[in-house]
């Protein structure tokens, strides 16, 4: 007796002194396929207090243990506690399990590492300063292809302390996280109803509203209420969801229909404890169809980072062929032609272009990631959603065009006029050509690129930036390659007067680009601001002309200070006017946009909203959603070529289909979220919702009329 007391006292002393207030876990027990130990959330326990002690198990790869309802086979992990008199252990807190499929059977299991916390309550008369030993006899079945029952005897020494104990330095946060994530009741309302052999489980309430319900699953506590292995069909509703499951023994096997069906509803947004009672499923739990397709497979990016990098590079290459890049193509072409016969210069310019593209891509990507990290729902192309940026770009394009027309020169104010761009001007010019190409053209997404971007934005910053880097390299590759392959440019004629003609001719696509940006601006900002921008354009052109005059006078040896001052003044004025216009922007309301009459026999569009899609689907109508933006040239081309013909309109009419437009010209969190649901961060995106409420289908970024007609006919069957 004395000996036992002495040993206990010694134990307590050692524990207390060695650990200075931390709970001391017994040795980790390896039972063959699993390493187990007890860990505590707190470093001690107050008399009468409760702390969570967790069974922590590291399970060998490919093996699994079982949840409280093991599913079709298996056995739940069990803990038998041996505690000092007056102490007690509460119910195990089971983390949400995973589904483990074995042929036609389905088990509910844990893989990898699992912590199962248990609340331990100390006796009210526990003595402060002592250390108690908690013992758990743990029994668990661990299975891979075969099953092995294993057991472990685990101990934990826990100091009894006065007042609130401090968190265990090693395990406090870990156990806390497990408890935070464990399914808890969240005031969800749930009813069940048997229909034939199907059990309808309607669950509504706070956290489900607007949550991502793809892959939602109900884990029942009782093994007898539903067929574990059968599919659980999901229908979303404004306030929650309805799961249709195959009823189990209690309902259709001759058992007693239970008063309650309890379990865990697991979704991407979280897992909650749910207790359903018999009743009529409410209308708010249905009507919005199945969740959209799982994002990852829809975008076709597989193979993680390597796949994404490859897709990004190829996407960048293809981006050069997308209509989006047309506006800046002429700049690239003119710059190339200008130096075709000076291999060294061309190479330097090629590299400068590359640097411009990469720097701008990374800068935009960095900004995008930073803004997103701040919680704003923005996507790729966000820079063109700002009227200020559009106005600035429009003026810049105008100046570039005027420059190409020969109205003024850059970087040659003192040296003669008409000798072509200096080498210094050439390098900076190439850099800015690259930058401009990215800012204006890259916001449209190309095939392959969409998936890579979707992947990038879900990854840590460094991974995301490397995907953007691959994209930039792909985008810059053709121009750089042309610069470095000697034979290509040699085929052009020797420099001469033709070059000046070509350059002046290529100015016109740039005027076009400027006009296009003005058109985008008009849609973003309304007619009043448009007037501002047009005035700014005239002022800028006037300034450029004066500047050109001054250059000419200087070249002729005459003073031109006044001309230069006036030129700069008008430019400054142009920028001021444009900025005021942009800031006074009054975007046309949605109603005004939708009132826009369809021209000719074309397809009439309606304004998109998630509710509208759900409503049309519920009414059994196929839906095409066109995620577009005025600044996305590819989108405009698709709409013109594939979506405005009479044939498409007829096909839509025949299938009673509806064409919805989600216009992302201005920032819109709802559209950004919808794009994210499909794993996208940019436009264009074309989605067809079939009539029967099946999985939405995503169409390619470049459409043809035939493609749209075929897809809409399929959706109408």
């Amino acid at each position, binding site marked *: 007796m004395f000996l036992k007391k002495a040993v206990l006292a010694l134990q307590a002393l050692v524990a207390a002194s060695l650990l200075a207030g931390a709970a001391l876990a017994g040795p980790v027990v390896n039972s063959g396929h699993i390493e187990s130990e007890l860990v505590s959330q707190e470093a001690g326990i107050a008399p009468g207090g409760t702390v969570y002690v967790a069974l922590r198990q590291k399970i060998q790869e490919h093996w699994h243990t079982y949840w409280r309802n093991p599913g079709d086979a298996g056995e739940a992990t069990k803990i038998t506690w041996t505690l000092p008199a007056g102490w007690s252990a509460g119910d195990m807190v089971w983390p949400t399990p995973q589904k483990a499929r074995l*042929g036609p059977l389905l088990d509910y299991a844990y893989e990898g590492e699992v912590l199962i916390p248990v609340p331990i309550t100390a006796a009210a008369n526990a003595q402060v300063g002592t250390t108690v030993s908690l013992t758990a006899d743990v029994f668990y079945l661990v299975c891979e292809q075969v099953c092995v029952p294993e057991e472990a005897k685990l101990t934990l020494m826990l100091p009894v302390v006065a007042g609130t104990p401090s968190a265990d330095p090693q395990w406090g946060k870990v156990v806390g996280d497990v408890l935070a994530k464990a399914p808890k009741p969240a005031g969800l309302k749930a009813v069940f109803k048997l229909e034939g052999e199907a059990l309808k489980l309607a669950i509504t309430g706070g956290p489900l509203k607007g949550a991502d319900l793809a892959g939602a699953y109900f884990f029942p506590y009782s093994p007898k209420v539903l067929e574990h292995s059968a599919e659980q069909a999901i229908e979303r509703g404004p306030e929650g969801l309805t799961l249709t499951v195959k009823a189990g023994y209690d309902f259709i096997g001759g058992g007693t229909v239970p008063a309650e069906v309890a379990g865990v509803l697991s979704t991407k947004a979280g897992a909650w404890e749910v207790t359903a009672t018999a009743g009529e499923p409410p209308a708010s739990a249905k009507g919005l169809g199945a969740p959209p397709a799982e994002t990852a497979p829809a975008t076709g990016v597989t193979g993680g980072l390597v796949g994404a990098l490859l897709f990004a590079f190829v996407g960048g290459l293809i981006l050069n062929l997308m209509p989006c890049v047309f506006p800046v193509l002429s700049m690239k072409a003119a710059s190339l032609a200008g130096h075709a016969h000076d291999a060294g210069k061309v190479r330097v310019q090629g590299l400068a272009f590359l640097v411009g593209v990469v720097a701008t891509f990374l800068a935009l990507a960095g900004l995008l990631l930073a803004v997103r990290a701040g919680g704003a729902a923005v996507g790729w192309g966000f820079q063109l959603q700002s009227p200020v940026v559009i106005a600035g770009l429009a003026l810049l394009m105008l100046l570039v065009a005027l420059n190409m027309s020969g109205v003024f020169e850059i970087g040659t104010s003192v040296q003669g006029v008409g000798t072509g761009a200096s080498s210094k001007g050439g390098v900076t010019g190439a850099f800015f050509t690259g930058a401009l190409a990215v800012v204006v053209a890259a916001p449209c997404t190309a095939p392959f690129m969409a998936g890579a971007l979707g992947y990038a934005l879900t990854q840590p910053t460094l991974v995301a930036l490397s995907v953007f880097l691959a994209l930039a390299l792909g985008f810059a590759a053709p121009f750089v390659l042309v610069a470095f392959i000697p034979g290509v440019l040699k085929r052009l004629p020797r420099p001469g007067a033709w070059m000046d003609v070509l350059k002046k001719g290529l100015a016109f696509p740039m005027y076009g680009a400027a006009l296009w940006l003005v058109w985008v601006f008009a849609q973003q900002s309304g007619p009043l601001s448009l007037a501002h921008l047009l005035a700014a354009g005239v002022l800028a052109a006037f300034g450029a002309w004066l500047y050109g005059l001054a250059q000419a006078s200087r070249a002729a040896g005459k003073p031109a200070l006044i001309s230069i001052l006036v030129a700069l003044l008008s430019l400054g004025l142009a920028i001021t006017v444009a900025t005021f216009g942009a800031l006074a922007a009054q975007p046309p309301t949605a109603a005004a946009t939708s009132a826009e009459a369809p021209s000719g026999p074309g397809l009439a569009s309606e304004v998109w909203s998630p509710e509208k899609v759900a409503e049309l689907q519920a009414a059994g109508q196929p839906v095409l959603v066109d995620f577009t933006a005025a600044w996305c040239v590819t989108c405009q081309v698709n709409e013109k070529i594939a979506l405005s013909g009479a044939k498409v309109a007829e096909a839509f009419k025949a299938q009673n289909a509806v064409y919805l437009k989600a216009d992302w010209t201005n920032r819109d969190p709802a559209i950004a979220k919808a794009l994210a649901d499909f794993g996208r961060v940019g436009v264009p995106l074309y989605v067809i919702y079939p009539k029967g409420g099946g999985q939405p289908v995503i169409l390619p970024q470049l459409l043809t009329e035939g493609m749209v007609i075929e897809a809409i006919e399929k959706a109408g069957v």
Partner: protein
Amino acid sequence: MSLTRRFVAAGLPLAALAPSVAFAKPAPDFTAVDVDGKTRSLSEFRGKTVVLEWVNEGCPYVKKHYSGNMQGLQQAARADGVVWLTIASSAPGKQGYFADGAAAKTWMDSRGAKPTTLLLDPENKVATAYKAKTTPHMFVIDKAGQVVYEGAIDDIPTAKVEDLKTAKNLVSAALADVKAGRKVATPFVTPYGCAVKYKDA
């Protein structure tokens, strides 16, 4: 397409009106080769009470019951004129697969197992017909060919031999009810054990 849908929709309420179908559980007939290479079928035992027992010799839960409990049940049941069919449904390459009848017999002899016979079901046909989930998974079929008990062998779902002493055996209870001409008091208890080793989907 829409026409078929309408027919299906019209048919649904009819099925709902016939709940008795769901509760009557005729035992699906099957044929399988036994350890002696003979083709056996359930229908040949019509008029007799039949017990089906799913087995996987490597499963710890099966081992628990073959510590003597299962053999005792088999002997007692057969003494009462009950047909006892042990079924091995492990797919080739999986735990519990018997390459041939001889391999199965060797195991039976080593355990002193005394079923009427052991059926080889490597293609999972019988297991699929009965939706067998675990080893052991037990079925009791009465003389009229109705499943009167399905599920666990007893009421303590563990792999520990020492639990046999205190467990209530649900198969012998069902057999006693059948013998006495009573309705089986407990017709279903969730089966426990290792998953039946079906072939990979």
